[in-house]
C-alpha cells in the first residue's frame, strides 16, 4: 500500500481511527516550534496505487471490538474530495449483524458539502468476524458517476481474531503437501 522509498511519514499507521470532527488537533505548538510527527496518521486515502473510483474517504470511531449482543453506536463520516457533487451512501451488513436503522441509503444533496455523517446503531451475536459495508456514489455536475466500496470490520469474538470467515461460499482451504491451495475442478474424462 505504501511506497517505502517515499517520504517515511506516509507509512506511519495509526492504531485507531480518528474522526475529523473529534479532537484530533494538530499537535504543533508555537512554544516548542516542533511538530510531533511520532503520532501515527492515516493517509487521506490509501497511499497505495489504488484503483480508480470515487474520491471519498471514510473515517469512523468504532473501536474494532464488540461484546456479543451489545449495542454499538458509531459515527461514520465520508469526506468527499470531488468538487460540486452529490453523494449517496448505501449501507449494508454481514448476515449476522443487526442494523437498527431501516434506512439504507443516505443522500447528501448539497453539492458544496464535503462531508456526510451517518450514525449507525448495530449489534451482533456472532463471534465470527463481520463487516459493515458502505458504497458511496458520487454524481458530478456533468453527469459522471463514481463509486467506491468501504468496509468496517466488526469483531465480537476473540480480540485480534480478524479476517472474514462468514463467506459461506468458501470451503476450508485445502492446501496440498507442496503448498498449493487446491480447488476441485469440473472434470470430464474420455478414454480413447
Amino acid at each position, binding site marked *: 500500500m505504501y511506497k517505502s522509498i517515499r517520504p517515511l511519514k506516509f507509512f506511519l499507521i495509526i492504531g485507531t481511527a480518528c474522526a475529523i470532527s473529534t479532537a484530533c488537533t494538530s499537535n504543533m505548538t508555537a512554544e516548542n516550534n516542533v511538530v510531533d510527527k511520532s503520532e501515527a496518521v492515516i493517509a487521506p486515502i490509501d497511499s497505495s496505487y489504488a484503483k*480508480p473510483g470515487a474520491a471519498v474517504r471514510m473515517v469512523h470511531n468504532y473501536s474494532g471490538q464488540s461484546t456479543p449482543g451489545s449495542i454499538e453506536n458509531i459515527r461514520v463520516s465520508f469526506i468527499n474530495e470531488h468538487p460540486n457533487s452529490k453523494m449517496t451512501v448505501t449501507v449494508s451488513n454481514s448476515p449476522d449483524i443487526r442494523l437498527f436503522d431501516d434506512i439504507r441509503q443516505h443522500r447528501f444533496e448539497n453539492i458544496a458539502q464535503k462531508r456526510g455523517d451517518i450514525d449507525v446503531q448495530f449489534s451482533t451475536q456472532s463471534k465470527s468476524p463481520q463487516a459493515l459495508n458502505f458504497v458511496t456514489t458520487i454524481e458530478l455536475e456533468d453527469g459522471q458517476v463514481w463509486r467506491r*466500496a468501504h468496509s468496517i470490520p466488526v469483531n465480537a469474538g476473540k480480540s485480534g481474531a480478524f479476517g472474514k470467515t462468514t463467506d459461506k461460499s468458501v470451503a476450508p482451504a485445502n492446501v496440498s503437501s507442496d503448498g498449493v491451495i487446491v480447488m476441485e475442478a469440473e472434470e470430464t474424462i474420455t478414454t480413447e
Partner: protein
Amino acid sequence: MTRISKLSVTALSAAILAACGGGGGGGGGTVTPPPPPPADTTAPTVSFSPTTLSVDSGQTGTSTVSASDNVGVTSGPNVSCDNGGSFSGSTFTAPTTETDVTVTCTATASDAAGNQGSATLTVDVTGVPIDSEAPVVTFDPSTANAMGGELVNINLTATDNVGVTTGPTATCDNGGDFFNNQFTAPDVSVDTTVTCTGTAEDAAGNIGTATLTVQVTPAPDVLAPLVSFNPTTLTVASEGTGSSVLSATDDRGVTVGPNVTCDNGGSFANNTFTAPATNVELTVTCTATAEDAAGNSGQDVLTVTVAAAGAKVTISGNVTFDFVPHSNVTNGLDYANTSQRPVRGATVEALDGSDAVLDTTQTDASGNYSVNVDLNTDVRIRVKSELVQTGTASWDVKVTDNTNNHNVYAMQGGLTSSGAANSTRDLNAASGWGGSDYTSSRVAAPFAIMDPIYTAIQKFVAVDSTVNFPAMEFRWSTSNTSGGNGSAADLAAGRIGTSSYIGNGTSGNVYILGDANNDTDEYDRHVVVHEWGHYFEDRMSRSDSVGGGHSLSNRLDMRVAMGEGWGNALSGMILDDPVYRDSLGAGQGSGFNFSVESNTHSTAGWYNEGSAQSIIYDVYDSAADGADNLSLGLGPIYETLTATSYTGSPAFTSIFLFLNELKSQQAGSATDIDAISAAQSISGTDEYGAGETNNGTVLSSLPVYKTVTVGGGAVEICSVDDQGNYNKLGNRAFLKLNIPTSGSYTITMTRKSGATGRDPDFYLFQAGSQVAKADAGTADSDTFTGTLQAGDYSIDAHDWNNVGSTGVTPGDACYDFSVN
C-alpha cells in the same frame, strides 16, 4: 276365478224372488228357501299322448300328460310308474335292465268335489346287457433300455369291447416322459428305472392300464468344460500387472484345473497377470485349461501386450474457467451470460497420489495441454494459477492467497488411473455463483485474474521479444475487503483497503478485492490491468507517484496523474476495450464506468489523469478522433517508458516526461503529439514542462519546476491545499537544481508568507531515487546540510500539513528556497 254356473244364479234369483213374496197370494205368507244347486259329479279328464312308448334299457322317451275338469282341476296330474320306470314333466326314463320289461305309468288328477280322473302310459323296455369289461391297454414293447436323453419309439394302444372313450395316455416317474408314442429318457447320472403307466377308459367307466419299464443309463459325457478369461486381452507395463477373471464350468463338474501357463516370462495367478521386465514391446500368451471326469478338456487364451519399460500414455485436454461479463447497463456482473474461456499459459501438472509431479507442461493459447505418464498409474491433473516462462522472454506471475501464506491457487481433477490407452481430461474452473449469491468455491476467480495478464504479457512480447518481467503476484482472497490500514497484519487478514499495487521499485505485488456483495474485482478486468500497469511502471519503467486516492475530476500531483492515466489507458489498450468498468455492491450488481477514449475532461491539464489517459490511448489507438491522428500502437509507448533517457531522467515522471521522450523517439509524429497535448490544455515543452501556461486554478503551480541554483538566491515556492491534500495539485512544489561540483551544500526552506507554524519539508531526487531530505518537525523552516554529488536534481518541497492527514492543519503558505 270360480265360475258360477248359470244354474246357480237362476236358482239364487228364484230364491230371492220367493223371499220377497213374488208369488202373489196376498200378505202374511211363509217364504220357501230355494233348492240347493246340484252336486259336481264329473271327474277331471286325464290323458297321455302318446299312450305307449318303446325304449331301451336306461334310455328315455317323451309323452305329454294333461288334465282338465268341468269345474276345475285342483290336484295333479301326478304320474307314478312301476317296474323301476320314472316319469317327470313329459319324459319317461326306463330302468336299467338286461331283460325286456313292460312299465306302466298312471297319471291322476282331482277336482274340488273330490272327483278323480286318470290315464295310463304303457312303455315296452328292451333289456340291454351291462358292460363290465375294461379297455385293454398295451405298450409295445413293454420294456426298453435307453441312455439319458435318448428317445425311444414305443407303441401305446387301447381296445374295448364297447369302445374306448378316454385315452390311452401315459405318465412316467423318475423324470421320464411319454408322449405321442415316444418315450424320452431323463438325463441321469446313475442307472435308473423309469416306470410309465398307460391308461384308457370306456363309457361304462371301466379303466384299463398297462406298464412300460425302461432301464435308463447315463449318457456319455461329451461336453468339455467351458473355460473363459474376462477380458481376453490386456495391455500392461513392463513388470506391471493386469486383472482378468478366469472361470471354468462343466455340466458334470470340473475335475482338473483350470490351470494357466504363460509364455515369454509372464505369469498368471489369482486372476492377476504379471508381466516380465522388457525393454521392447512383446506379446505374452496365457492358456487356461480345465477337464471333467470323462476326460473332456476345455481352454481359453489371454493375450497380453506388455509395453516396453518407460512406455507412456498421453493424457490431454482443454482447461477453461467461468468468465462472467459486465452488463453494459448496470456495469455490474452479468452472471446469466457466464461462458467458458480457455485458461492460457498456465502450469499443468500430472500428479500421483502423493502429489509427486509425474509430468508438467503449460496450456497453450487455446487452453489445451498434453502430458505423458506411465500406464495404469493413478494420476490427477492440476492446473496452477500462474504464468511462468524462462528464457529469452520471461515472466513469473502467480495468483496467491495473501490470507493463506501466499500459497498459489490451483484447480485439480480426481485421482484416476491413466489406463493403458491415451485419454482426455477436460477441466473447468467454476465461478461458484449459485444464482443469487456465491454458494460454492470460487474456483474461477484466480484464473479470471490471470487471463487479462496473459494478454498483456503477449502484447508486450510482440513488441519486445526479449522482454523480462520481474516476478510478481496477484494476491486475492474472498476475505480481501475494503477495510484496514495497510499494515502487514491487515494485509495478511485480507483488510487490503482497495485493489491496489504495493511496490517500491525493487519488488511489488497487486492486491485484489474479493469481498462478495461489497466489492470484488476478479472479473473487473480493467481494474486488474490498471493495477498491473502500476507494476509495469514501477518495475519495467519508472514511477515517482506518491499514490493516494484519485479520480478523473481531480487536479492531481503530476506524478500521480501520469501513473493513474497510464494504468487507465493500458487497460483499454490491452483489452481492446476503451470502456473501463468496475462492478461492486450487493450481488456485484452495480458499478460505474468511464471511457479512456473520451477526450473531454473538465479539469484537463498536465495534472489530470483523464488527460494523461486520453493522450496515451490516442497515441496507441487507430481511431482518429478530435485532435487525434496518431496510431502508433503499443511499441512506441513501450519504447518510451523503458528508455533509459526516461527511467534515468532527472525530472519527475509526468506527462511532460512521457511526451518529451515520445517525441524524441517519434520525431515524425511530433506535430500530432503536440496536437493531442494541446487538446488537453497542455502546452509545456521538455521533460520539465517549460512554458506551461495552464495553472489548473492554482497560481503557485507554475512554472511547473522552479529553478534554484547554488548561491543564486531564494526562490519562492508555495504549498497550498486548494485542490485537497496529500496528492493534489499545489500540495507540493517542484524545483530543479544543478549541482556543478560534488561537495557540501546547505539547502533551506523558510516560511515567507501565509499561515505561521507550518512544517516545511523537502526531498531531493536523482533519476527518481531519493538522495537527501529535510523533514524535521521544525516550525516554519527546515534545512539540509550534506554532501551532494554533481548532477541534476528534482526537489519535492511541501508543507507537511498539506500532505499528512489527521493531526494536521492544511493551509496555504509560501517559502523561500535556497541552496548554498
